[in-house]
């Protein structure tokens, strides 16, 4: 096993570890660090699709939403089953992942045969469509959602339930982010990554070169969605202990994911992490300075990045370190 391949993970894991330790040891900084972890994870997951294929999924948040429902459904149905113990949480995570993966397979299988613009159009509706399906067919509690705080307390006792929501949910986010980085790197160095690069640059030429573009788009799509499911399951459902369709299908998160990936550098490994941290800090800061105005400020920022800095921070950095020793590490 060639260890050199994993060098790019070093700065990333170091950063995650640092954030985690800061949050753990410094009073009052756990929540902010958790927020950064959430955004880093979100960016990392979204990057697998947006960054690597160059396709935009405007309905991305639906996968986060389904992930939350997965966790909520698992907990609310199984909390009385004593022998499962902590397994309920694991099942919740897996269910969230599965649900997101399933939706992405369905949507992706249909929509990814289409070329860029048509695909984006198809995804516009995913989010809205799903929200209306849930409320319209009164699925999973309809517009009233699911609340699991009581169920958690009954299953685990007040103390453990609390620590689940306030500590373990966030820790899981760090782990998920680290996992997403690993998978991203693995893809990048394998045939999948090359195929994705080719189709991102020039889809028609890629097809003529023998790349089955639909297959690889679907792989990236499902992977990205699966991670979103995990994030939704832990960072939303488990942490908040409730799920409401109005919240979890909120398009704001797609916008944030886009900003994070673009700002950091679409298609790079380090980019989403950097973007996530910068964005998380920015958001925290804005929440204090100008509450309720975040999106108003974000929108022109996106426009600015698109026009002036399309490769993102890490994208620019990569160009600078080309040919130097750092090249192996800034990926």
């Amino acid at each position, binding site marked *: 096993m060639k260890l050199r391949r994993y060098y790019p993970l070093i700065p990333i894991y170091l950063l995650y570890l640092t954030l985690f330790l800061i949050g753990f040891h410094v009073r009052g900084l756990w929540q902010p660090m958790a927020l950064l972890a959430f955004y880093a994870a979100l960016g990392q997951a979204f990057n697998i699709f947006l960054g690597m294929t160059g396709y935009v999924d405007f309905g991305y948040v639906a996968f986060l939403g389904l992930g939350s429902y997965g966790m909520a459904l698992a907990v609310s149905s199984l909390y009385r089953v004593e022998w499962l113990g902590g397994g309920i949480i694991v099942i919740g995570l897996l269910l969230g992942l599965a649900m997101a993966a399933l939706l992405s397979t369905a949507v992706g299988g249909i929509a990814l045969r289409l070329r860029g613009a048509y695909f984006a159009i198809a995804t516009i509706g995913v989010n809205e469509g799903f929200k209306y399906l849930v409320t319209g067919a009164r699925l999973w509690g309809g517009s009233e959602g699911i609340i699991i705080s009581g169920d958690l307390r009954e299953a685990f006792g007040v103390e453990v339930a609390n620590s689940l929501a306030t500590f373990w949910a966030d820790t899981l986010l760090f782990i998920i982010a680290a996992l997403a980085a690993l998978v991203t790197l693995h893809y990048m160095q394998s045939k999948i990554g090359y195929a994705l690069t080719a189709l991102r*640059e020039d889809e028609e*030429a890629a097809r003529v070169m023998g790349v089955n573009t639909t297959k690889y788009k679907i792989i990236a799509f499902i992977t990205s969605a699966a991670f979103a499911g995990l994030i939704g399951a832990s960072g939303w459902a488990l942490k908040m202990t409730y799920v409401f369709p109005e919240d979890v299908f909120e398009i704001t998160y797609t916008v944030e994911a886009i900003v994070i990936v673009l700002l950091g550098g679409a298609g790079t490994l380090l980019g989403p992490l950097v973007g996530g941290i910068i964005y998380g800090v920015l958001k925290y800061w804005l929440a204090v300075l100008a509450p309720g105005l975040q999106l108003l400020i974000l929108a022109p920022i996106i426009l600015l990045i698109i026009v002036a800095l399309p490769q993102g921070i890490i994208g620019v950095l990569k160009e600078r370190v080309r040919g130097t020793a750092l090249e192996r590490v800034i990926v």
Partner: protein
Amino acid sequence: MALLKLEGVTKRFGGLTAVDRVSLEIESGEALGIVGPNGSGKTTLYNIISGVYRPEEGRVLFEGRDITGLPPYRRTQLGIGRTFQIPRPFSSATVRENVAIGAMFGTLGGKIGVGEALELADHYLELVGLQALKDKASGSLTPVEKKLMELARALAMKPKLLLLDEAMAGMPPKDIDRLVGLLKRVKEEEGIAIISMVEHIMRAVAGFAERVIVLHQGKKFLEAPTAEALSDPRVVEIYLGRPAEVGDASG
């Protein structure tokens, strides 16, 4: 059995017939030239062979198998490789990576890994003389270098049939001769069939292709051994409206 066989393919765009009942055959290891002035249907014909277009009439057969309905990537995996008239590099990837992509998804597709593909890329880059540039971003190459990279990439696919689309346009005559020599070697060593398509660079066809097909307004105007075809006054007329020597038209 012919490697590639086109049976009466016709392609229409609205009211315009770009390719009109064209039939042709090529065997393994053969070199065929397709010449014709601008608008004669050459690129459309290529697109039909490589699967970018579906013909309204006619069939495309590869190794005896009807591939008329197959998508482009499947044809590549079966062994049809091509270059583009205006090179289409994957700009953010290095030259080496570009060529490796050809290797990874061509006929060797399932059998080689990333590492081997990169080694194969090195081999073909040396063959075309680009090994010094292998780690450069492919978007930053000169047009001629891009054409050479296109060629290396197509060869790395290990095709059975190679479609060259104006592969030597814009190159100085010395380079064209060297490239033709290279193609002859590759043809003999690896048994690849090559179709070279040109508009004026007769040099790319003259010393290299055994036969030539002349296209005019979408129809197959003439098919003959190279020297015959290129000195046929009718062919020259289609192009220029006046007699000319083969040596003249070397771009």
